[in-house]
């Protein structure tokens, strides 16, 4: 459930059970709540067995891509003397998303345990947790938790007396959304500009410092201890709709709802239950206009599309959008969608790393066109131009930042033409420069 709200009956709290409970933060508190049982069990298993359990569970990447986790772990080569690395992506910067910081600040040991099991699964002895620089409080909490884990034998050269070695290094970012992209993240750890890399080579072959590497999101790794303890079947059972989406997902709901916060639901839960029941629905007198279901990089959804949408990867895809990071932005009839996508475009323009021509220039140009429309100087040709730019910015670059800039713009123009018409026709008051 999401701090500061109490758990809602329609939630299924697994990862978020202890949000809001400061006693869960410490090593002792976590152990008292069943913590580190997963790691102890994993220490008795082979790497192949660990990977098999995670594969069977159907866990998919919770950072945004939804790639099957067990499959990703199985891409790692057999040990050959080269060091393997696990990297935990705690760079949470996708607008609308704020779940990983809660996991870290309330249950840092849940994450540490997940990282340790991950290391065992991929023959790695070191895990780097890359945490964005702005997460000052979660960082302090995490660093302290790592120290505690070492002091109590959960990390170090002889984990729980097993003779195995697991090290965790917390590495602080310094203000770059693009470092949430896995290859840019690796470059950032290596002391370089956060530029995404071309693939191939893939991280499992040549990743961090050129060594075989797996990168996973905070929420993904935090699910692993529970899967180890309670089993793959249990995790698969937590699914209402598609069997391809199992377990629970933390949805960060923000914007125009009564109770914004993090909500943990079984995959397949109806989206309208989340918005209208758990979050208390719209503010008094307001109606739902649009929803961004999975962070700013996914297409907008109309109120109609929300009505019968299931919260899983396939369900949201069926409605023409993506589950992504699960960062849900709810907008009611007071929202100015042109302004919303303009501010998104400004975000992407600010965060572009500058490598690819289409992204470097296209994100800034997109923001400029939208700004002119907001200032009342837009024309119908501008809408066509925005769509042309979006096409040039999609599927042509090293990473998908430029695609992410294009998606909300295109979906807004196509699904909410009235919003743009209001500015073009002069019905809506222009925004001052």
């Amino acid at each position, binding site marked *: 459930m999401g701090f500061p709200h109490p758990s809602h009956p329609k939630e299924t709290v697994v990862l978020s059970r202890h949000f809001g409970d400061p006693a869960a933060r410490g090593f002792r508190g976590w152990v008292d709540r069943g913590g580190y049982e997963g790691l102890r069990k994993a220490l008795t298993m082979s790497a192949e067995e660990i990977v098999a359990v995670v594969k069977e569970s159907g866990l998919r990447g919770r950072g945004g891509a939804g790639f099957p986790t067990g499959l990703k772990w199985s891409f790692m080569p057999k040990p050959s003397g080269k060091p393997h690395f696990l990297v935990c992506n705690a760079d949470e910067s996708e607008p609308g998303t704020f779940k990983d910081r809660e996991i870290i600040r309330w249950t840092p040991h849940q994450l540490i345990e997940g990282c340790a099991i991950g290391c065992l699964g991929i023959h790695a002895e070191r895990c780097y947790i890359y945490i964005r620089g*702005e997460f000052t409080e979660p960082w302090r909490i995490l660093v302290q938790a790592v120290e505690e884990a070492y002091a109590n034998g959960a990390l170090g050269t002889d984990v729980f007396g097993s003779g195995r070695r697991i090290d965790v290094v917390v590495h602080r970012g310094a203000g770059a959304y693009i470092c949430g992209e896995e290859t840019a993240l690796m470059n950032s750890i290596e002391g*370089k500009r956060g530029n995404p890399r071309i693939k191939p080579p893939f991280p499992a072959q040549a990743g961090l410092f050129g060594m075989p590497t797996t990168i996973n999101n905070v929420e993904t790794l935090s699910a692993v201890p529970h899967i180890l303890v309670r089993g793959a079947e249990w995790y698969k059972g937590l699914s209402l709709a598609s069997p391809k989406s199992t377990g629970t997902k933390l949805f960060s709901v923000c914007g125009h709802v009564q109770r914004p916060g993090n909500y943990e639901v079984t995959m397949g839960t109806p989206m309208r239950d989340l918005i209208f029941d758990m979050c208390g629905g719209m503010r008094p007198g307001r109606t739902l206009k649009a929803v961004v279901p999975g962070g*700013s990089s996914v297409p907008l959804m109309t109120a109609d599309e929300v009505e019968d949408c299931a919260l899983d990867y396939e369900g949201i895809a069926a409605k023409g959008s993506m589950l992504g990071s699960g960062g849900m932005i709810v907008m009611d009839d007071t929202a100015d969608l042109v302004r919303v996508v303009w501010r998104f475009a400004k975000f992407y323009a600010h965060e572009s790393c500058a490598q690819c021509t289409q992204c470097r220039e296209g994100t800034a140009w997109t923001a400029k066109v939208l700004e002119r429309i907001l200032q009342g100087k837009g024309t119908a040709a501008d809408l066509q131009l925005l769509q042309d730019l979006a096409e040039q910015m999609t599927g042509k670059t090293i990473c998908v930042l430029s695609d992410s800039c294009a998606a909300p713009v295109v979906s807004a123009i196509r699904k909410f033409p009235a919003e743009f018409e209001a500015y073009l026709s002069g019905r809506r008051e222009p925004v001052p420069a």
Partner: protein
Amino acid sequence: MSHGGHAPAAGEPVAHEPVFTGEVRAKLEALFPKYPTRQACLLPALWLVQEARGWVSEPALAEVAEVLGLTPAYVKGVVTFYTMYHTHPVGRHFIQVCTTSPCGLCGADDVLQAILAHSGCGDLGATSPDGRFTVVEVECLGACGFATPVLVDDDFVEGVTPESVPALLSRYA
């Protein structure tokens, strides 16, 4: 923790006092075993500089380069990529306000205006005349459900409203 970096008086030549001495040097060396290359210590080393001095000056940048076996040009390319490193002195307290769309929908622009007014800064990026504050707009701070989030130095404050701004700012001397 305040990050005030003071600008030198006009025309005054500034001799660079090395940063990596004593305790700071010890912290830097504690990083070395954690990474297979010195280059990988660059982001943490820059944080040490900013912690100690409030910003990353050109001579400090050159010192980091030397200590890690990199060139100043290389380090500069990295420093200018990441927005959290200050390349010029800022007010004693550095305020970052999120105005990305989710927070924008929840009144972040009003919060920003209130902070600009009450801090005395007036403009984004400018330092207030009394040297107390510098205010900037930043991208998503990852607290969208707790709009509007504001980072003052290392204090992450959630749920700021225009009304709560004066009380917030008064906590910082």
